[in-house]
């Protein structure tokens, strides 16, 4: 609780948090939408913003505002699945490699390094291309999760490695703790903030990736997400037609969402780095 109060003193955390709450509220609104997100021709087509349709309507005869609420919800769900599942992998790999060391460490980190060096995007595209029809929200999230753990596994491993060298590890063993309770009691409290901050960055990455996959037509295009809204607007030449609200809505929402997430993660990771904290204290 104290940590949270300290974080809110940083304007970046406060701003990021407020915007994220607003977007989450928008996503929540989708549950009360008067329209079906998938059906066509529920409202007049191609109308500019008005009081009735505050963000206009699209060529499919859908209200852009209400479509956007679904889009945020779905994009957040994809990103959360990707982020949470890849956290599980990253934590397991990171803890195992860091604590066991030796051959286990070398093999796991070899895999992670390999994943980092290869342009993953292409492999992702290749898989998505083959799975095209199966790219539902859940599957897209899982696919992104499969490719999104390597970097963070490395970070977590590095932290475990340094924790393992600290003397309290030995005190814990001398106190009769088993390996499992050693790891959960001594190491987890240190890694939770790190896991949290990598979660935020991973969510941002997944949102961006979903958009690119959508642009390539590699997800189920009828499901509204930030990516499919943008893909649709671009293929329908929204700019040439002057229907700016088609394209501005997903663009603006994406930028706000990602900036908010980024500010949160920068603020949290600075809070975690004691050197930066001292700097902030000293500056005042």
């Amino acid at each position, binding site marked *: 609780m104290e940590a949270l109060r300290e974080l809110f003193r940083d304007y970046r955390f406060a701003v990021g948090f407020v915007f994220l709450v607003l977007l989450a509220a928008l996503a929540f609104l989708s549950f009360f939408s008067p329209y079906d997100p998938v059906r066509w021709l529920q409202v007049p087509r191609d109308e500019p913003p008005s009081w009735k349709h505050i963000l206009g309507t699209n060529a499919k005869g859908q209200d852009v505002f209400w479509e956007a609420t679904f889009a945020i919800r779905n994009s957040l769900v994809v990103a959360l699945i990707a982020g949470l599942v890849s956290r599980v992998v990253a934590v397991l790999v990171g803890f195992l490699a860091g604590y066991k060391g030796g051959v286990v460490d*070398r093999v796991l980190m070899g895999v992670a390094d390999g994943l980092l060096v290869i342009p993953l995007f292409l492999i992702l595209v290749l898989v998505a291309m083959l799975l095209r029809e199966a790219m539902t929200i859940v599957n897209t999230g899982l696919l992104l999760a499969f490719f999104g753990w390597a970097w963070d596994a490395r970070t977590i491993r590095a932290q475990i490695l340094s924790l393992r060298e*600290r003397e309290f590890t030995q005190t814990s063993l001398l106190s009769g*703790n088993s390996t499992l309770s050693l790891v959960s009691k001594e190491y987890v409290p240190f890694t939770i903030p790190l896991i949290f901050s990598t979660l935020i960055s991973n969510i941002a990455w997944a949102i961006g990736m979903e958009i690119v996959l959508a642009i390539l037509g590699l997800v189920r295009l009828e499901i509204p997400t930030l990516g499919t809204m943008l893909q649709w607007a671009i293929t329908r030449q929204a700019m040439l037609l002057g229907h700016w609200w088609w394209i501005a809505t997903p663009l603006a929402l994406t930028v706000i969402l990602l900036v908010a997430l980024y500010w949160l993660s920068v603020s949290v990771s600075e809070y975690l780095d004691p050197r930066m904290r001292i700097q902030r204290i000293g500056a005042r």
Partner: protein
Amino acid sequence: MTVILETKGVSKVFSLGSWLSRVHLVAVDRVSLQIRQAEIFTLAGESGCGKTTTARMILGFELPTTGEIFYRGKRIDEFRDRKAWFQEVQAVFQNPFETFNPLRKVESYFFETVFNYHLRKDVKAAQALIEEKLQAVGLSFQDVAGKYPAEFSGGQLQRASIARALLTNPSLLVADEPVSMVDASLRMSIVNLFRTLRDSFGVSVVYITHDLATAYYVSDRIAIMFRGNIVEMGGVEEVLGAPKHPYTKLLLESIPEPDPERRQEKAMVFLEEREEYLRRGCKFAGRCPEKEEICSREAPQEVMVGGVFVRCHKHAR
């Protein structure tokens, strides 16, 4: 006197570098020593002489590359598990602020020790046992309850660390540089505790240090280590009172004596650590004032001179 712990020809070889290229460094070289019941045994030497590695092998944190360690006649790798071993041997570390996790309460280590080793059944009985051990080091449960490590002073934490180690009634306590990070005005209070442990509780202590003055003050026997070898070992009065190995003499001369009337004026030679580790023959030959021709050719064998173990050509004849 009964021997409780014995190492027989224990060596530790570290391989440095990656898997394609190994450099082997013999950090501990065929160390054999015995620790008796209720004695304080000092392992002394410069940094990088292998004393900490030896201690880690005794504790079981590190496995010897060759050689065996026996506890009351039983090989330590024959203990049922880690826990059964740590019931007999406990440790105290150099930096008291690192001994306990800064994110956890100090008392939790006490309760964990009590319950993990099934020393007491319920919280109340556990607390009574903890109180007893804390009293023994000059603290009380009140001083510790509910506090995080940052709320203590270094001296208090080091006492708490010793009290925790005493919970299982170990026969042997390994103390790795236990006072080097404690405030100067508090050092002796910690060192005196080791004497109390020996005299009142019959605990043996392995005291690791580079400070020969406290070693003399507190210990019964001493082993001087140099670049992985024990070069001299015996009763502390004999070894430090009448040093036989030139390295022991050098160490003794180098103590900055707290007496302005007696200043060291003699100059001496210094050599880099790496050079000495990879040296053939006697590793000390490079800076030995009593060096002979044989020293750089052949490694000296250990001999007993008047009850003191020495590894030096000069005494081999």
